[in-house]
């Protein structure tokens, strides 16, 4: 057996995959939205009816959740690299997690109050 010191509990591969899957979701949604901006006149009516349709609403929710998960992995990596004192780093982790959970609820509320 090779003896080695590892950091953390084998979350690396899972996070690597999550970061890429969420990136692909965001890339396709971005292209869809760019397509809307390029082909449709931007008025309240067109903007509102875009997000009123259920498929677009669900795609937007998938996009926003992907953003939040992607942001968690990214911010955690940044903190792991640059914030050395454990207490401050863990406090920042908790702050980011709480903020992202609040944003998730906010995103649902925004999308599901479109009339």
């Amino acid at each position, binding site marked *: 057996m090779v003896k080695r*010191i590892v*950091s953390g509990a084998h979350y690396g591969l899972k996070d690597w995959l999550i970061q890429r899957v969420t990136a692909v979701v965001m890339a396709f949604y971005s292209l869809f939205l760019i397509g809307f901006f390029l082909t449709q006149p931007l008025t309240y009516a067109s903007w509102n009816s875009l997000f009123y349709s259920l498929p677009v609403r669900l795609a937007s929710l998938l996009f926003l959740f992907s953003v939040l998960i992607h*942001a968690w992995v990214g911010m955690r990596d940044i903190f*792991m*690299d640059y914030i*050395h004192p454990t207490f401050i780093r863990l406090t920042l982790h908790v702050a980011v997690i709480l903020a992202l959970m609040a944003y998730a609820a*906010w*995103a649902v509320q*925004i999308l599901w109050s*479109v009339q």
Partner: protein
Amino acid sequence: MGRSRPVYLNLFKIRLPLPGVVSIMHRASGALLFLLLPVLLFVLQLSLASEQGFAEVQGWFRLPLVKLLLIGVIWGYLHHFCMGLRYLALDLDIGVDLPQARFSSWLVLAVSIGATILTGAWLW
């Protein structure tokens, strides 16, 4: 082997080559976009809430300073987007050798800045 991890680096002793520069810009733009999430959600909420809210958002985006800030955010998004595609390509073993990696770094800079200028011209 045997080194204690995680390893911390002294950033001020490192002179970055171009792939390193675009990589740190990927991080910086990602962190910026994270910090702007509440602002973006707020703008989305207001723009969808009512006709008046939409008009209010449109009014803000007509201010030159806000336009400049928006173009900055768009650059951050496009840089992060293009770098993301570059990383996905690297994962597929495309462009791993140094000359190609340098070229794709230039490409990311050129495409994201070019697209930002086009978007800026369209917005103005």
